[in-house]
C-alpha cells in the first residue's frame, strides 16, 4: 500500500507526542462529524503485482509498429531520438516544479529560454512563450488575444479546420462571445481568397494553417496576410514545425501571431497527449502585453553574471487574477524541452532534410495511392493526403484492419461534402514495404467490393 513512499508512517506516535497531539484523529478534529468514511476502493498492491497488471492492460493495445498505420490528421508518428527521451527523464528536470526559485532552477530556465529561441528562429518571430497545452488551445488563445488587441469580436478560420481544433476554438470563445466565421476552400483545396475578402471586415484575426487540414501547402499565405492587415485584423498562422526547414518562416510571411504543435518534435504519439502548443508573437508592445502564458527571460544576477528568470508575469493569473490574459498556469514545459533538444539535434541541415524527406515520402505515397483511388486536390502535400474512394470508406477500413493494416482518418463524419474520403498520412518513418502492403491490399479490397 505504498508505505515505502511515506517515511514517517513508522513514526506517528513519536511525532504526535512531540507536538502534543494524541492521535491522528485529533488532527482532523475540524472536520464535521460523519464526513470521514471508508472508501470503496481496492487494497494497495506491491510494485511487482502492479507491474504484471499494467503490462497486461497495456498489452491490449496494438502499436503502430505492430501494424502499418496511415493515420495522421494532427498526430504523426515521428521518431524520437533516444537521447531526447533519456535527457528529459533526468529527475532534476522531470521532477522539478515551475521554476519559481530562479537561483536553483537555472537548468530548466535556460532550457526553456533555448526552446523559445529555437522556436523563434523557426517561425521568424522574437517573442515566444514557454508553451501552451497544444496547438488547439494555442490557436484558441490567439483568437481571444486578437480580440483583446483589436477590440473586435470576430475571428476568421478556414472551413477545412481540424475538427479537434474547431471544437476547442468554440469552447474557448463561447464565454467572451467571439463570433467564428468560416471561409470556404476552393477547387484546389486552398483557402478561397475571394470568400475571405467578403468576410474579413471587422475581423479581429484571420487564421490559416501550413499545411492545411488536407495536408496541402497553402500557396497564398502572403496575400491572405495582407488582406487581414488591410482590414485591421491580426494575421494568425498555425504551423507544423517540421515543415519549417523547407517553408519560409511565417514571421517572414507577415504573421503577427504564430501557433502550432511543438510535440511533433521530441515527443511520441502518446495516444494524443501530452502535446505542447507553440505561441509566438511579433516584438510589439501591444501584442506582448496581451499574450498568454509563461515567458522566460534573460537577465543577470547580483554579480552581473548571465541568468534566466520567469518574466513579464504581470500578464499572468497569479498576479493579475481575473484580469489576466489567460488562466494558464501549468503549461507543457517538459514537452517544450524535449522539442528544444530535438531541434538542437536536427540543426538547420537536419530540419531541412526532415522536411524534404517528408515531402518526398508524401509525393511517393500520393503516386502509389492514386493507383487505387482519387486525389481530389492537386498541390504539394506534406504528411496528410486526402484520398477519395469509390467504395464506402468504413468498409475499406474494416477490411484493412482484418489484414492488420490501419487506414486513414475517415472524413465523412466531419465533412460530408467530401464523400468517401479519408486523410492518409506518411512521415519520415514510413517504410516502403508498408505502402506496398497497403496498396496491394487496397487493390484486393476494391476489386472484391466491385464484384
Amino acid at each position: 500500500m505504498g508505505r515505502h513512499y511515506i517515511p514517517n508512517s513508522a513514526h506517528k506516535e513519536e511525532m504526535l507526542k512531540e507536538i502534543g497531539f494524541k492521535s491522528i484523529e485529533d488532527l482532523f478534529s475540524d472536520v464535521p462529524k460523519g464526513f470521514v468514511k471508508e472508501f470503496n476502493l481496492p487494497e494497495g498492491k506491491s510494485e511487482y503485482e502492479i507491474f504484471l497488471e499494467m503490462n497486461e492492460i497495456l498489452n491490449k493495445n496494438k502499436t503502430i509498429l505492430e501494424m502499418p498505420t496511415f493515420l495522421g490528421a494532427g498526430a504523426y508518428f515521428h521518431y524520437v531520438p533516444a537521447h531526447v527521451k533519456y535527457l528529459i527523464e533526468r529527475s532534476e528536470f522531470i521532477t522539478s516544479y515551475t521554476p519559481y526559485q530562479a537561483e536553483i532552477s537555472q537548468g530548466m530556465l535556460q532550457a526553456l529560454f533555448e526552446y523559445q529561441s529555437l522556436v523563434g528562429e523557426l517561425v521568424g518571430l522574437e517573442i515566444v512563450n514557454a508553451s501552451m497545452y497544444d496547438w488547439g488551445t494555442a490557436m484558441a488563445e490567439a483568437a481571444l488575444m486578437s480580440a483583446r488587441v483589436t477590440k473586435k469580436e470576430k475571428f476568421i478560420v478556414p472551413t477545412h479546420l481540424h475538427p479537434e481544433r474547431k471544437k476547442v476554438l468554440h469552447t474557448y470563445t463561447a464565454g467572451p462571445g467571439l463570433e467564428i466565421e468560416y471561409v470556404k476552400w476552393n477547387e484546389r483545396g486552398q483557402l478561397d481568397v475571394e470568400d475571405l475578402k467578403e468576410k474579413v471586415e471587422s475581423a479581429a484575426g484571420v487564421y490559416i494553417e501550413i499545411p492545411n487540414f488536407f495536408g496541402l501547402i497553402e500557396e497564398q499565405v502572403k496575400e491572405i496576410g495582407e488582406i487581414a492587415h488591410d482590414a485591421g485584423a491580426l494575421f494568425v498562422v498555425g504551423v507544423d514545425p517540421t515543415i519549417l526547414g523547407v517553408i519560409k518562416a511565417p514571421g517572414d510571411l507577415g504573421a503577427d501571431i504564430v501557433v502550432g504543435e511543438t510535440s511533433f518534435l521530441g515527443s511520441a504519439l502518446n495516444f494524443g497527449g501530452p502535446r505542447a502548443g507553440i505561441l509566438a508573437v511579433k516584438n510589439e508592445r501591444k501584442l506582448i502585453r496581451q499574450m498568454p502564458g509563461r515567458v522566460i527571460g534573460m537577465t543577470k544576477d547580483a554579480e552581473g553574471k548571465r541568468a534566466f528568470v520567469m518574466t513579464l508575469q504581470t500578464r499572468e493569473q497569479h498576479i493579475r487574477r481575473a484580469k489576466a490574459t489567460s488562466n494558464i498556469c501549468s503549461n507543457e514545459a517538459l514537452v517544450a524541452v524535449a522539442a528544444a533538444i530535438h531541434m538542437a539535434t536536427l540543426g538547420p541541415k537536419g530540419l531541412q532534410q526532415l522536411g524534404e524527406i517528408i515531402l518526398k515520402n508524401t509525393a511517393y505515397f500520393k503516386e502509389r495511392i492514386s493507383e487505387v483511388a482519387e486525389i481530389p486536390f492537386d498541390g504539394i502535400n506534406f504528411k496528410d493526403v486526402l484520398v477519395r474512394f469509390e467504395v464506402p470508406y468504413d468498409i475499406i477500413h474494416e477490411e484493412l484492419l482484418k489484414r492488420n493494416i490501419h487506414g486513414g482518418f475517415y472524413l465523412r463524419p466531419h465533412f460530408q461534402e467530401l464523400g468517401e474520403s479519408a486523410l492518409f498520412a506518411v512521415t519520415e518513418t514510413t517504410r516502403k514495404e508498408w505502402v506496398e502492403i497497403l496498396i496491394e491490399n487496397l487493390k484486393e479490397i476494391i476489386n472484391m467490393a466491385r464484384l
Partner: protein
Amino acid sequence: WKEPLIFELSKPGRVGFTLPAPIENIKIQIPEHLKRDQLELPELSEPEIVRHYTRLSEMNYGVDSGMYPLGSCTMKYNPKINEEFANHPKATLIHPYQDERTVQGALQIMWELEQWLKEITGMDRFTLQPAAGANGEFAGVMIIRAYHLDKGETQRNEIIVPDSAHGTNPASAAMAGFKVIEIPSNEQGMVDLEALENAVSERTAGIMLTNPNTLGIFEEDILEIAKIVHKAGGLLYYDGANLNGILGKIRPGDMGFDVVHINLHKTFSTPHGGGGPGAGPVGVKEHLVEYLPVPLVEFDGEKYYLNYDLPKSIGKVKEFYGNFTVLVRALTYLKMMGREGLKEVSEIAVLNANYLTQKLKGTKGYELPHKELRKHEVVFSAEPMKKDTGVKTLDVAKRLLDFGLHAPTIYFPLIVHEALMIEPTETVSKEDLDAYVEALKQISKEAYTNPEIVKTAPHNTAVRRVDDVLAAKKPIITWRMYKQLKEKGEVDY
C-alpha cells in the same frame, strides 16, 4: 558554473542526427516565395548536446534533490515505476484515432482511472481531458455556465471567489465570461458566512472553493456554505489543488460540491516536469454529466469505447483525450496505494504539516496567523521579521536555498503579509522536517544579528540573486533578441 547557450556551442558543419533516406528521391518544387532561405539553428553533435543538457539538469533542483515544500503545489516524491509505464511503447506508440478495438488497453486505463477518481471525490462522472488544473477549472466553470444557460437562467453571470483563492480561480471564471465577486475571509482564515450571504443573488452562477483552503485550514462551515449557495441557485466548484490534505478520508462530493477538478501532478504523484505536463480531470454530479466535454470513455461490460454523443457538451478544452501518459502514471500510483495507502497519504501529510507548524511556531520573526490546526500546509507570516530587521520573506526564501533546500511558496495567499506557505507532503522524513525548521530558525537568528547575509542571499547557488526587475525592464526572450541587443551594445551579460 556558467553553461553557454546552445547557440554559442554551435560550430558550422556539425550534425547531431542521421535521418533515414526518403523512399524515393522525388524532386519537389516549393514555390519560390514560400521557400525557406535561411535558418539559424545551432549545429552540434550528439555528444555535445547530451553534455549540454546533462549539465543544465545538474543546475536544477527536483524532488529527487531534496525537500520541495511549495505550498499548494504538493511536491511529493514521484515513484519511478510510474515512468516505466508512461514510457512503455504500448502507451507511447499508439495514435489517438486508432480503431477502438486496437486501443482497448488505453481506454481501460482511462476508464479505470475515472472509477478511482469518482470514488475518491464522490462525483458521478469525470472527464480526463484537461491538461492542467487551470484547464480543468475552465472546463468546470464552462460546465456551470452551460447548466445555467440550459436551464434558461441567462442572468447568472457571477462567480464568487474567496480572497484566499488561487489566482487561477478568478482567471478561469473570467475566461468563461463570468464576473468575479471576491469575498473576504474571516479572522480564522475561513470563508466569512455573512459576506457570502450578502454576495449571493439570482446572478450567482457558483462559488469556487478550495478545501482545505490555501491557508491549509479546513473550511469547517462547508455544509453551511453549500446550503447558502445552492439555495441561491448557484453551484459549488471544488479546486482540487489541496486534495492531498483530505485524501482517502473525506470527499468533496459529500460536502456538497457539484464540480471538482483534481491535479494529478499534485495529489497523484505524476511529475511536474518543470511546469508541465500535468493533468486536471474534472468530475461532476449526475445533473451536470450531460455538459461534460466530449468524448467520455464508456465500458459496456465487454469493451471500452469513446462516447461523443453528448449534444449539450461544452465541446472540448483540449485536443484529443488529455495528457494520456500522465493518466497512466496516476493510475499506476493509485493501484499501488489502494484504499489504506491513500488514507495514509493524507494522514501523514497532515501530521507532517502540523509537526512543522508546532516546531516552528514561536520562532522570533515568524508569526502564525489564523487557526493553529492545519491540514496539509501552513502559512506563516514573516511580517514581524520585516518590521524588526528589514529582512523580507523573499530574503528568507533565497537564504533557504543556501541550505540546499527549496523555498516555500511566498507572498501567497495574498491575505497574509510576507507569507511563507509551506507544504511538506507525506514523502518527507522527520529528519527533513527538523532540518527545515532548523534552517528557518537559523535564518531568523541571522536576520536579527547579521541581516546582510540574508538580504544578499543566496550565496552558494549556481547564480547569485537573479535580477527580475531588469528582466522585465529589458525583456530578452529569444536568442534573436539577445543578438540584436548585444550588437547594439545594450547588454553585457
